[in-house]
């Protein structure tokens, strides 16, 4: 059998034309209709530089490697979620098998607001498709150091949550300031738990940021930080709602800005996230990103109404410059900050939070505890309880054992679970064992 020629770009296109939050919701059936028409009419799928892939279906085991669904993942998702996560896996696998140099999973439903514990849908997301993809690659191919750069206008709080305690995953998100936009988080002081301090980097940008501001952040902060971190793989959560025409946000980035970003970031895999200007932005932004990733000329991908793209104000530029300066200073002393934070934390670190599921109208109260260990990355326990207008109260207790968990931590984790089960406060009890690659219900 002749070896297949390695192509510059693999493209998975799964528009999920039968899935929507509701028919008039921004995340609705025809969201990628106009993008499809543009991609087909431009003949992008006929280019020799691009190979199209059909998405696989992610299995429940693939999703439960990341998520703890309450009461279970299966009852919270639709078939579209399995294909969307599977599409991300297909895209990444094409790169891993060296069939393509890069890949773009142009899929929906999106995933970057889905956290580790899932009670329902929040920010249009139920399953974190990037995390399912990364953990699949780690499990199957032993991938280790990963950088996820989230360029969606909304803070990727789900991805941040999943990797908050993982020093091997650098999560960088720049987004419109959380004081002015959903989900209201993503501030510079959210930097990861002490064991993974500064593997989370949030860059909240002022409303009205243009290509100029976004590329300042990219050139002066994101790219140097990536070079320092030296990841084995770069993933781009390629949301497109920083566009000036997006109805849900207030930024001023253009298709050219996004395409240039894709070129400079040079991500191994890009995965579509948000972007709700389905007629005025998505067709152009997606074509720009596809051309840039395939190494083709994108200079003529221009929106017809480009004249109305706002100009960045001087105060916005100044705010961004200040933010970059502060982050650069922090980044240079990251090792010392991390060891200080670990010393301060002692044996464990915990946080208690309320998490709102806007789509499911559920409020979750969660308590997370990281138990530190000198021999391994320790273990994580989560106590969670949710209630909502349209749902009954649900609660669960989960113990998460890492890939490198030592025998002592494994025993401690199992003891904690048995102890919790005896106390009987929660309805469901889970043991997520990354080394055994299993999610057990006790």
């Amino acid at each position, binding site marked *: 059998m002749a070896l297949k020629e390695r192509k510059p770009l693999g493209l998975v296109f799964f528009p999920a*034309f039968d899935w929507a939050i509701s*028919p*008039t919701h921004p995340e*609705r*059936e*025809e969201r990628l*209709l106009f993008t499809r028409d543009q991609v087909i009419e431009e003949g992008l799928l006929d280019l020799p530089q691009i190979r199209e892939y059909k998405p696989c279906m992610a299995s429940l085991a693939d999703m439960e490697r990341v998520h703890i669904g309450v009461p279970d993942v299966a009852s919270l998702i639709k078939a579209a979620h399995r294909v969307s996560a599977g599409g991300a896996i297909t895209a990444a696998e094409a790169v891993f098998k060296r069939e393509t140099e890069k890949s773009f999973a142009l899929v929906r439903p999106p995933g970057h607001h889905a956290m580790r514990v899932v009670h329902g849908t929040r920010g249009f997301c139920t399953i974190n498709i990037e995390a399912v993809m990364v953990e699949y690659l780690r499990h199957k191919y032993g991938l280790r150091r990963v950088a996820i750069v989230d360029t969606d206008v909304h803070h990727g709080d789900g991805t941040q949550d999943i990797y908050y305690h993982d020093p091997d995953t650098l999560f960088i998100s720049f987004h419109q300031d959380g004081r002015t936009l959903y989900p209201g988080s993503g501030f510079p002081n959210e930097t990861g738990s002490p064991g993974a301090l500064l593997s989370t980097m949030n860059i909240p940008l002022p409303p009205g940021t243009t290509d100029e501001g976004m590329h300042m952040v990219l050139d002066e902060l994101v790219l140097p930080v990536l070079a320092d971190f030296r990841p084995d793989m770069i993933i781009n959560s390629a949301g497109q709602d920083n566009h000036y025409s997006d109805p849900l946000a207030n930024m001023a980035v253009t298709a050219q800005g996004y395409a240039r970003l894709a070129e400079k970031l040079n991500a191994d895999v890009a995965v579509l996230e948000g972007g709700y200007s389905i007629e005025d932005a998505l067709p152009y932004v997606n074509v720009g990103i596809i051309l840039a990733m395939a190494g083709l000329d994108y200079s003529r991908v221009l929106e017809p109404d480009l004249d109305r793209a706002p100009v960045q104000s001087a105060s916005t530029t100044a705010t961004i410059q200040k933010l970059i300066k502060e982050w650069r200073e922090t980044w240079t002393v990251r090792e010392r900050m991390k060891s200080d934070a670990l010393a301060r934390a002692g044996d464990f670190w915990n946080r208690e939070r309320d998490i709102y599921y806007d789509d499911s109208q559920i409020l979750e109260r969660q308590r997370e505890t990281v138990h530190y260990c000198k021999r391994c990355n320790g273990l994580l326990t989560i106590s969670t309880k949710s209630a909502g207008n349209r749902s009954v109260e649900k609660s669960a207790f989960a113990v998460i054992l890492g890939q490198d968990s030592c025998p002592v931590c494994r025993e401690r984790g199992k003891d904690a679970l048995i102890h919790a089960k005896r106390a009987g406060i929660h309805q469901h009890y889970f043991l997520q064992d990354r080394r055994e690659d299993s999610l057990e219900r006790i």
Partner: protein
Amino acid sequence: MRRLAADHLLELANAAGIDVPEIETTFEEEFNLVRGFSTVGKIISIGVQIKPGIITELSVEDEIRGDRQWL
């Protein structure tokens, strides 16, 4: 909608002098058209074609007869 598409195909076929023994649908799509946050219409696409197949069957006899006539 289906009839509209079929009628249009017939019109085109008539103008070109093509026989239409059967019409078949190749694809159908229906999407909402939302402006702001309300549905203002539908985008409906239907693909129709003349069913491909053999136009006229010729038997050996026909051919011979045809030849004779020609001669």
